[in-house]
């Protein structure tokens, strides 16, 4: 980018017309020669440096979805009819109607690449970015969740990345005053050079307060407010998030450190309160947050969204570094900035509210009726483009997609051949080794660094199946959220893997007693230029869209993160799915802990011998092969119906979904969360019942006297069940097989992460 910084004066539109043959650094900015030619053809001349900056970030993979857009259309096309959907894909975040006049907006987004280069700031600004997306919809952000994946827990680099990421999320989220109510933590060698840091934010507003990212009303003012603009994050979207890391050349990746933004959560907290006061005062015509692609994206999207033009004075943008030129200002991803469209008569009041919150605000331009996005630098025109050409009409690629050559070989590597534990002692040892494995161990080391209490509406948080927030203190209306994903399942079959991720999040929300309503997703994949990765992506999107249609929950929005690979080796395809559910009365939420003595324990659902991609195969044998568990969406739907109806009727004293590690891990977690043991008898092959990961299952404990009502509910929905035993005692006792005293169980579960990370 030295070409940009050393330019003696701004490259104007007149200069561009006069010097058509000047060499431009489009390749260094991540554009192909065909893309560059297409820009020149649209403009009828070469782009100015500033225009090139805009196109390079807006047409980046990260902002334009150029490789994924053709597939993502399925989420809309196949979406089940939903009266609840108020705003969907293409908005800053999806919005659903949850009744009583409330609307909820939620979205999950990745900050994978920055979090590898600079874990603390990368993860911190990931939280900041998704929170601003929610704020821009007009909502008060009320909670966050984070879904994290790292390389092997004992790898030296994981000791650098994980504590930094957790500290960054803790620093930013805590200072912002948002409770962190859930998420995931997983480890696999495939994430060693590409950790996944996905953050979800949820916000609440009154239905009528929904805001649009649209400029309108020629003559209206364009206001930039929040932090001043600095050189941080220049090229974040194009250079960092839209390319793979090199192999081993640490220096090369370290050189990308300046591409990572630096967060100021204090300013973001002020921005939240300031924006909410501006919304309440009715002073905002349109609003957009500044995230990836900064001023370029906000101006182009606001103008394109409202089908209007905009005139912007780039020299009016307040700067932290006075040496910045127009192209750098356009590419900067400095954090904690918002752009609003304001009627001229309201500007005084708008600026007053900003001043009350100590938020700098500057009028940098006007809405025009010319249909052009025009920008000047000290009076000279440096940008003159059609806003839609940058915001909407970027390139769309149909990349080649080819089923990977090793896919059949992988499927043929059946875990049935692996040696299995048989004796009680072996089964006991297997349970303990899974329970203490980093991916299944107690997550307190991580979650105690997050504030889960702030704002006083947190009803459920880690280690519950879902996080839950009370929305209305008088009516007890609430929402529940869970995120899930399993890269091993998706590697074995991306179509099924994406469906299993959705099914698990859906089941988790239902196991908390909430009715699943809508979906967000974060699709983490390798390079789209690799046909095998593109096949994985196509299969995952198709699977997720199909399953959403069957389960009746629409995708409301999400994010695609490509280029998660080191050299030629991609991560496992990792679709992470977030499901939002509604609690009509959040006092009826379910928790996982056994909290009464003598309650009947039931296993709901069918168990088959399914070990492909299982925690057992992974932890005990380092094996990945065979088929992932079968997907049965009708069974998922029936199970969820039973769980939510039983919760509503107050029939259950505990409920926990079965997933990684199967029944063995679920029972251990129920005992540990409630501080109470259980005695169970396994109705069949002990190994299969304990460790299979068949989907559409949950373990529940019944309140005294609820047996008949639960049986009736189960039969009406066709959900099979087995009576396992009763809660109580001070050990996890499996009749005739093994007994593990709770202190031993707790010791194994809780020792792992502190031992690894201090």
């Amino acid at each position, binding site marked *: 980018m030295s070409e940009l910084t050393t330019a003696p004066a701004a490259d104007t539109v007149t200069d561009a017309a006069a010097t058509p043959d000047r060499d431009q650094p489009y390749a260094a900015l991540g554009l192909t020669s065909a893309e560059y030619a297409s820009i020149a053809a649209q403009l009828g001349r070469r782009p100015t440096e500033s225009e090139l900056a805009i196109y390079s970030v807006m047409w980046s993979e990260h902002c334009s979805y150029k490789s994924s857009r053709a597939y993502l259309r399925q989420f809309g096309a196949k979406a089940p009819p939903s009266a609840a959907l108020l705003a969907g894909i293409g908005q800053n975040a999806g919005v659903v109607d949850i009744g009583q006049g409330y609307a909820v907006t939620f979205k999950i987004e990745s900050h994978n690449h920055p979090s590898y280069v600079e874990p603390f700031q990368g993860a911190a600004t990931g939280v900041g970015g998704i929170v601003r997306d929610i704020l821009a919809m007009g909502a008060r952000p009320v909670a966050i969740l984070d879904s994290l994946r790292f390389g092997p827990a004992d790898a030296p680099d994981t000791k650098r990345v994980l504590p930094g990421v957790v*500290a960054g999320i*803790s*620093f930013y989220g*805590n*200072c912002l*005053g948002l409770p962190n109510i859930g998420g995931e933590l997983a480890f696999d060698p495939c994430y060693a050079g590409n950790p996944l840091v996905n953050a979800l934010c949820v916000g609440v507003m009154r239905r009528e307060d929904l805001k649009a990212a649209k400029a309108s009303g020629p003559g209206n003012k364009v206001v930039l407010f929040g932090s001043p603009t600095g050189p941080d994050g220049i090229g974040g979207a194009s250079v960092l998030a839209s390319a793979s890391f090199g192999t081993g050349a640490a220096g090369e990746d370290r050189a990308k450190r300046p591409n990572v933004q630096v967060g*100021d*959560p*204090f*300013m973001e*907290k*002020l921005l939240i309160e300031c924006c909410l006061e501006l919304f309440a005062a009715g002073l905002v015509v349109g609003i957009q947050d500044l995230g990836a692609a900064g001023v370029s994206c906000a101006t182009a999207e606001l103008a394109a969204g409202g089908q209007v033009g905009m005139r912007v004075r780039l020299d009016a943008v307040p700067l932290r570094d006075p040496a910045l030129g127009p192209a750098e200002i356009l590419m900067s991803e400095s954090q904690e900035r918002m752009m609003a469209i304001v009627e001229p008569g309201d500007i005084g009041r708008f600026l007053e509210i900003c001043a*009350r*919150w*100590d938020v700098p605000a500057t009028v940098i331009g006007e809405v025009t009726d010319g249909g052009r996005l025009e920008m000047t630098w000290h009076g000279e025109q440096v940008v003159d483009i059609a806003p839609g050409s940058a915001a909407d009409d970027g390139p769309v690629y149909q990349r080649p997609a080819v089923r990977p050559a090793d896919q059949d070989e992988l499927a043929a590597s059946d875990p049935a051949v692996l040696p299995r534990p048989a004796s009680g002692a072996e089964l006991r040892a297997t349970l303990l080794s899974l329970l203490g494995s980093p991916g299944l161990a107690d997550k307190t080391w991580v*979650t*105690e*660094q*997050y*504030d*889960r*209490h*702030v*704002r*006083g*509406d*947190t*009803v459920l948080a880690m280690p519950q199946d879902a996080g839950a927030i*009370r929305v209305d*203190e008088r009516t007890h209306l609430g929402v529940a959220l869970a995120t899930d994903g399993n890269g091993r399942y998706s590697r074995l079959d991306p179509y099924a893997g994406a469906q299993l991720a959705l099914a698990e999040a859906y089941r988790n929300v239902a196991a908390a007693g909430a009715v699943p309503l809508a979906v967000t997703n974060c699709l983490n994949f390798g390079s789209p230029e690799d046909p095998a990765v593109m096949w994985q992506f196509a299969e995952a999107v198709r699977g997720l869209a199909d399953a959403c249609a069957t389960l009746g929950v629409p995708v409301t929005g999400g994010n695609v993160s490509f280029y998660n690979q080191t050299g030629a080796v991609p991560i496992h395809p990792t679709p992470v799915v977030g499901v939002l559910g509604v609690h009509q009365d*959040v*006092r009826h939420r379910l928790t996982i802990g056994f909290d009464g003595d003598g309650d009947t324990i039931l296993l709901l659902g069918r168990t088959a011998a399914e070990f492909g991609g299982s925690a057992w195969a992974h932890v005990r044998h380092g094996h990945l092969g065979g088929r992932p568990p079968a997907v049965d969406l009708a069974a998922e739907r029936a199970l969820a119906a039973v769980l939510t109806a039983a919760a509503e009727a107050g029939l259950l004293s505990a409920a926990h979904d079965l997933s990684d590690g199967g029944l063995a891990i679920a029972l251990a977690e129920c005992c540990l969360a409630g501080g109470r043991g259980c005695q169970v008898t396994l109705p069949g092959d002990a190994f299969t019942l304990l460790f299979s990961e068949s989907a559409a299952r949950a373990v529940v404990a019944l309140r005294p006297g609820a047996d008949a009502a639960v049986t009736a509910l189960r039969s009406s929905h066709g959900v099979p069940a087995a009576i396992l035993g009763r809660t109580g005692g001070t050990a996890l006792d499996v009749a005739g097989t093994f007994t593990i005293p709770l202190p031993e169980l707790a010791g194994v579960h809780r020792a792992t992460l502190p031992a690894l990370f201090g």
Partner: protein
Amino acid sequence: MTARIGVVTFPGSLDDVDAERAVRLAGGTPVPLWHAERDLRGVDAVILPGGFSYGDYLRCGAIAAFSPVMAELRPAAHAGLPVLGICNGFQILCEAHLLPGALTRNERLRFINSEVTIRIESAGTAWTSHFAAGEEVTVVLKSGEGAYVADEATIKDLRSSGRIVARYSGSNPNGSLGAIAAVASQAGNVVGLMPHPEHAVDELTGAGTGGRGFFESIVASVLA
């Protein structure tokens, strides 16, 4: 007649809504106070809530201690107005020299959000009168700089004058000297408390209801 309890919002205050709710649940009337106004609106007592006032820049509580509302609060506190600083509010009271000592980085250098049990050492303050001395209460600790420190003479003085209001019971979570969780001013009307009682006022959303006693104490003593 109702107890009007002021809750100050500084830029970066986070638990102000929680403190207001706790006052309401205890039967008092919360009165929002704004950092930039030298006006206490005639309240009967003041709570400085938790959060990251001014982003905790410079030092936790250091900038808030110089805000206009504190210029008004300082003489009022010296004149006997009951004041409770929770977490960041405790830090502000120390920075404002209304309480002795300081809060430093947790022993393990990480933020901790955890339910903790504290033992009420002094039921003699306006904020703890509803407890019995020796009573144990579960509240929520959530801080990165919660380790209470003071010089030896100060600790001795606090102890001999009964101004250690609460201590952590069981294991010391953050390395506070003498496991001190709360201290009071010489006159006893100003109390700083590191863990959060306002997150333990509602079974549904908090760590039980053990924290209500702090708010019931002040409402009762104002009305007495």
